[in-house]
Structures are given as structure tokens and as C-alpha cells.
């Protein structure tokens, strides 16, 4: 009797697993959650237990409400979750209201700042830039190390790289990091600072989040692999210019400026190519619509990020 019952339970578990299909859209949320947990359990990085839940909660609620109102459907919440958690980590402030405001701006920007069915700005990047620009009296970016040990940093870089490689986004990270290093050397020629000093920021967690989650956002990057790499280099270049102007928010502002511009150029180029092509030709597969209605490359749907 007990054996039969045991088999029955096992069969149930097996059926449950058979019915379980891992959704790749969970990869990025799991990674960023892992980074947050590792950072906090190791070093107590969370200045306030309220900030991250408030940021996530605001983003999730806003996403659900706006999606229901404007798309008539309940959204997949991975994107909102990542947006909220990134706001909670990247924004440093003793107040709670900036987390609410930033999460709201982040999510709403996807619904307001659209052009031809696409949102142009990486949502979190937009929200954070807006906050830094409009409320510098109350906020600052995450700009310090978590802990003082090199190993957690290396582990996060390796784990993130492997994850992004599996998601076929690693080339963006690699292009950006390589360009950052090259442009750091260029900066030394202007600033007189050592190369080590100029690359110091990229050794911090802010850049890990920026590189792994922000510039690789499939919905706000261009379609082709080569194009993505060119855009990553362009971001690093504009960042260099901003850094020469001593902008503390250089990477965020660089993405804010380059990201939408690159998308607009791509749209214009695609439209021009389509006009030139015979009408009967099938559209490229990359232009398949995304589930949420955005004109997002299908390959990019594996990882819906910020």
C-alpha cells in the first residue's frame, strides 16, 4: 500500500517536472537576484530593507496596471522585476520616495516614450537618468565596491559572462568592456591619470549591473549582432567624452543618448531597405513581433531585461 502510494507520489512529481518548462526569461531575474543576495549576505549592501522591495513592488504594480489598461493583458513580470531590483540597487538615497518615483518613471517610459511601436529608451536607464538629472539633491548612483575582496567581483563577472553567453548577448558585453578599456587609455592622455585609475570604475558592481543588464536589453538594442557591437562601442565612446567632462553619471547618460539614437537610425535604415526591396519579399525573421506588441527581434525575446 505504502509502496503504491510512494510510486504515485513519484509519478506526480515526475509529471510536474514534465510539465515544467524553463522560461529563459527567468534567467536574467535569477542572475540579478543572485548578485543582490550574494552582495547582501556577504557585505550587507542593502542600506535599507525597504528600498529594494519598494522599488520592485512599485515596478511590478505599475507594469501590471499599465499592461492591463493599455494592452488588455497581464504582463510577464520578469522585466518589471529586473527594473525594480536594478533601481533598488543602483540608486543610493536615504529616502524612499526616489525608489517609488524611479520605478514609476521606468515602467511608464515604456508606454509613453514610444516610436513606431517601440520604446526607445532602456526603461531603467531612462528612470535612473531622469532621477539623477532632476533630483541630484536627493540621490546618488551606486559608486562603491561591495566589500574589499576581488573574488566576489570575479565570480560575478564570470557568472554573468557565462549567462550572457548562453543568452547570446555576450558579444555586447565584450565589445563594451573592450571599448571601455581602450577609451580609458585614451582618457589617460587627457587627464594625466594612470590607466589603473581610469579603469577603476569598471571594477565596481555598478558596472556589472550596467554591462550585464542594461546595455544588453534586447528591446532597446539594434537587431544585428554587428550593430549591437557597434552601439556598445559607441556607448563607451560617448561615455569617454562625458567622463572627460567629469560626469559622475557618464555610463548612464551615454546609454541614454546613444541607445535611442541607434534605434532610430536602425528604423530609418530598415524602412529605407524595405522600400527598396520588392514588395513580395518576406520580412526578415528578426522583425517578428514580440508577444507584447513591440517590434523586437525574436532572438532577443530569450531575455527580456530592464
Amino acid at each position: 500500500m505504502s509502496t503504491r502510494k510512494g510510486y504515485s507520489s513519484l509519478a506526480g512529481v515526475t509529471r510536474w517536472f514534465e510539465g515544467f518548462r524553463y522560461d529563459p526569461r527567468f534567467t536574467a531575474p535569477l542572475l540579478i537576484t543572485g548578485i543582490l543576495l550574494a552582495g547582501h549576505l556577504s557585505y550587507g549592501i542593502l542600506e535599507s530593507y525597504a528600498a529594494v522591495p519598494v522599488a520592485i513592488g512599485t515596478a511590478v504594480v505599475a507594469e501590471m496596471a499599465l499592461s492591463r489598461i493599455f494592452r488588455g493583458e497581464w504582463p510577464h513580470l520578469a522585466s518589471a522585476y529586473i527594473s525594480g531590483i536594478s533601481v533598488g540597487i543602483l540608486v543610493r538615497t536615504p529616502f524612499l520616495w526616489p525608489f517609488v518615483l524611479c520605478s514609476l518613471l521606468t515602467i511608464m517610459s515604456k508606454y509613453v516614450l514610444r516610436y513606431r511601436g517601440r520604446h526607445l529608451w532602456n526603461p531603467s536607464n531612462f528612470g535612473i537618468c531622469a532621477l539623477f538629472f532632476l533630483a541630484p539633491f536627493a540621490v546618488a548612483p551606486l559608486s562603491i565596491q561591495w566589500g574589499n575582496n576581488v573574488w566576489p567581483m570575479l565570480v560575478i563577472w564570470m557568472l554573468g559572462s557565462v549567462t550572457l553567453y548562453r543568452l547570446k548577448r555576450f558579444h555586447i558585453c565584450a565589445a563594451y568592456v573592450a571599448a571601455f578599456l581602450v577609451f580609458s587609455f585614451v582618457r589617460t592622455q587627457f587627464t594625466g591619470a594612470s590607466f589603473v585609475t581610469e579603469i577603476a570604475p569598471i571594477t565596481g558592481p555598478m558596472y556589472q549591473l550596467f554591462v550585464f543588464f542594461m546595455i544588453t536589453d534586447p528591446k532597446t538594442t539594434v537587431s544585428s549582432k554587428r550593430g549591437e557591437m557597434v552601439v556598445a562601442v559607441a556607448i563607451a565612446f560617448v561615455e569617454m567624452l562625458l567622463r572627460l567632462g567629469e560626469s559622475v553619471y557618464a555610463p548612464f547618460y551615454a546609454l541614454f543618448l546613444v541607445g535611442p539614437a541607434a534605434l532610430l537610425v536602425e528604423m530609418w535604415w530598415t524602412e529605407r531597405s524595405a522600400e527598396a526591396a520588392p514588395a513580395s519579399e518576406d520580412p526578415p525573421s528578426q522583425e517578428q513581433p514580440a508577444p507584447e506588441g513591440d517590434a523586437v527581434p525574436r532572438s532577443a525575446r530569450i531575455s527580456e531585461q530592464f
Partner: protein
Amino acid sequence: MKKGLLVALFAALLATPLVIQRVRGGGEASSSDGSLSAEASLERYGFHLREVSDEAGLDFTHQAPQFDEKLSHIMPQVASMGAGVSVVDFDNDGRPDLYVTNSRRGTANALYRNQGDGAFENVAAEVGLADVNRVGTGVSMGSAWGDYDNDGYEDLFLYKWGRPAIFHNDGGDGFTRVPRKNAGLPDWANVNAATWLDYNRDGHLDLFFGGYYAEDVNLWDLETTRIMPTSFEYAQNGGRKYLLRGRGDGTFEDVTREVLGPESGRWTMAASAADLTGNGYPDLFVANDYGVDELFINKEGKRFQPAGEQAGIGFSPKSGMNVAFGDVMNQGRQGVYVTNISEPGVLMQGNNLWVPSAPTDSAPGTAAGVPQYKNLAGAMGVELGGWSYGAQFGDLNNDGALDLFMTNGYVSTDSEESYWYDFSQVAGGNRAIIGDAAHWPAMEGRSLSGDQRSRLWLGDGAGQFREVAQAVGAGRRLDGRAVALADFDQDGAIDAAVAHQRGSLLLYENRVDTGSKWIAFRLEGRASNRSAIGAHVTLHWNNGQKQVQSVSGGSGFCSQNQRALHFGLGTGAQVEKAVIQWPSGRVQTLDAPAPGTVHPVTEPKASGEA
């Protein structure tokens, strides 16, 4: 329609920060009223401060140290401390005097004797406390005063980046350096914080002090440039802590390892002691730069238990630079104020006001657990200042609620260029980068949060503070460091002395609305240490008002307030009683002490004796 509403809401959200800034006065200068006349200030806030340094004869200007050439590119920030000021009545004439530290080799410290007529006279050279910054001995950072041998005169612990020293007070006429082997002091330490305490309640003062740079670092003769913190908020390569047990005869024993426990290596910036658990033994609160603060709970004089995380203060590393105790809610329990760095748009740590959130067993002398603290700085309105340094609690308008005087400002130069970008760049780097001074970009004369205004927050005793510094006459913009409070002119109003890095010592004379009453207690121990350091006085007045204060052996940042405990009472004051918890454990109750005077109180031979 829906889209239009969404766009409108989006636009409104974008405008929200501007509205918040306007409403909250988020800018540094806008949170305070403009300067008011003395009369208007008295009428609106009940007091007014007037800067009287020149007429008082306080002609002291701090000079910063000059270190090894290897640090020349970042010298202003490495040499950014040393302006300390402490209050002491060194000659027992009943008037609070001032001891001020200087920090360049060959410069003199100053001991300003209060002449009682509003003027001060520098007698440091006469008594042997001026020439203490000689080549090879390091330079002064601050001072802490306590009568370690119970002879009735306050002795001096002078802490330095170099050789710390204890000076015995020879009857108020001169000072004699205690031989190093007797004092148990290290040959060299870069000390930035110290406090006297009687941790084992044996009636003899003990001494705690903490290092900033590691003790093997001689900043004038560097062997390496790898002397900087290995992390901006998690560094543990700072100086060690010291706990010396006093024997009462001028000799001390280093009991750090046995009593204080393992070394954390944090960069200590400030420390103070008070009984925070109610068990009668003084606990230690340490504020650390580049890391979390530390709380050491005194386990009945036998050992200290590190309890920072347990108490809720050991998370959220910041840049702790001050420790001041204050019963901000008039609940009979002291909170702790720790200053940090707030630079809009770059680094927003916010200051901490640690308020005990759960009542501990506050009955004196009974066992108690670890108090639980919550940071209520934001809720109470004392969170943002600037690059904040010293802060002290005191009732400046005698309304019965503690106020908070805080200094700000890090490095100012003639240049209007800012070093913040470079600072934030390297501060975010890995330990191999940030920890090596050679990797820090050259400052090239640029400022770093320099010339910032002091804050003076008026407390209402119910958990809210209002910033009034500029309005009441304390609006100078300088690089503030230490602040010490005392009633220098003995008119019943707490005055303020503020030391500035590379700047003048400023004395603010306080004039208070005569309708507000006050009372003060000057304690002298018998079984307890004679300075009565560690004694707590709980004042009960006006049918239910209650406030506790404690006698401190050093508080704030590189400073010490007057020994006498000053309580504001508000108008129509009826004092019911003052309950004194002596360090010896004796409890003394003074029934209906008269307001408007300083009560000299000598410890009774038995509890209850008045």
C-alpha cells in the same frame, strides 16, 4: 484619452522632484531661514548666536600637516583632520576653558583660560601644553580630559598621528608628561578618537582610543603608498583600537585583547562611552570611516561584547565621523548621532540618528540585553548636512528639548573646481586601486565638499528637528571639524566653540530668551572617579518631562563638552527631582533643585544621601 492621461501623469512625475525640492528645501542653503536680527531670532527661536572669537581673544588658526612627498598629489585630503577642541576647567576656577589642537610640525596647541570677563588668555606655553607637535613626534589630532588619579584636577590625553601622550595636571599650574612606559601607550599610532571611561567601575579612569591609519604608517616617512582604505565602505586595514585600564596612580595596562576582544581593523574616527543598556556599566560606541559603526556592550566590567549587528547598527557601512549621545525624545534613553557624507548627486549616505526602538531594562544596575536601534535621522529631519564632521547635543534655547549643532565641510581651496568626479572614480575601484595612494588622481588645488555651512537643528523633544543655523547666526561656511558646547560666560546659555581645518577657532556666544529656565549639575565623584565620567543624571520636571544626560570623557569628533550637565526647562519650570546614577552604582536623588543655577554635587557615601 487614456494615453493622454498617461502622458500627463508621466509629465507630473517628472516634475515631482522639483516640487519636492521646493517643499523640502532640498538644497543646502534653502533649508534654513535667512539671517535674522538678534531680536527676531530670539523671538522666533528663543536664542541667538553671535560670533565673538576676536573680542574674546581667540586668535587661533589651525594649520594642517604636511606629509611625505609621496602624498603631495592628494595632500589636502590626507591632511584633512587635526582641528580639535575640548572644554576643560583645568584650573578649577569654575569656568570652562578651551584646549585647541594644531597639526603642522612645529606649531603650538593652545590652552585658552577663561578669564570670566568674556576674554580668554592662551596659557598653553606657560603650563607646558603648547610645544607638542615637534618633529618626530607626530602632530595633534584631539584631546580628552579626565582626572585619572582623582587628585581633583583634570588630566590630558593628547592623541596624535604620532606619539600619543598623557599629561598630568599639577594642581592647575602646569602639566607633566607621564612617562610612556608608565602610561602604557604605543610608540606610534595614528589616533583620531579617544574617550575616558571607567569600564570596570573601580573608581579609576580607563582610556579608550582608536587608530585611523594603521599604526605602522608614519605619514612623514612612507615606505609604501599602499596606506589608503582598501574599500570605501568595507575597509579593514585601519588602525587598531586600544583599551588601557587605569590603576589610578598614573600607570595603565593595555587590556585591549582581553577586555575589548578581537581587532576589527576599521578606521576609527570617533568614540564615546555611556551606559546604553541600563546595567550601570559604560558601553562603547565607535564610529568608523569606510565601514560600519561598532557597539561594544559592557558585560559588567569584565569584557566588552561586540554587538553592532545585534543592536541593528552594524549594517549599512558609511563614513562615520562622530559619536554624540542625546535623549532626543525626552524618554530617559539616549540615542546616538553619527555623521556621514552627503554630497547631492554623488554620495548620499545620510547621517544616522540611532534611537533605541525597544525599551531596554533601564532600571539602573540591573542586567539588560542589547538595545535595539533604528536610524531615525530621516524621520526626525537631521539626516542631511554635507560632508559632516563633529556634532553635539545641547539645549541651546533652554526649551527643554535637545538641539543638535553639527559642522560640515571637507576640503576647500581657492579653486571652485571640484575633485568629486575623480574621488568617486577611484572610490569605486577595487582594493588594489583605492588602497594605493599612487592611484588617486591629483587634486591640483580642487575642492572636495569644502566651505559648507554648519547645521543647527532645534529639537522639539517629540522627534522633530528644524534647521535654523543661518537664521540664528551660525551660518558661516568653512571646513568644520570639532564642536564643543559649554556655558563659557556662565549666563545659563550653552555657547559653542567650533574648530575648523585650516581655519579659525570660532566661539559663538549664545543669548537665550530669559523666559526659558535652565538648571545644571557639576558632579564630583568619591567612590566613583572624581570626574564623575559615566554618571547619568535624569531630570524630572513639569509633571512628566524627563531627560537623561551623562557625563562624558569625550564625545563628538575630536572634542569634549563641558563637564557640567546643562538642562533647559522651558517656561514656567517646576523641577521635581534629579536622579543621579553614579558610576559606583550609587543612586542619589535631589528633590526640587532650584532652576537657574549650577548645582555642585559631590557623590554621597551611600545611596540616597543628598
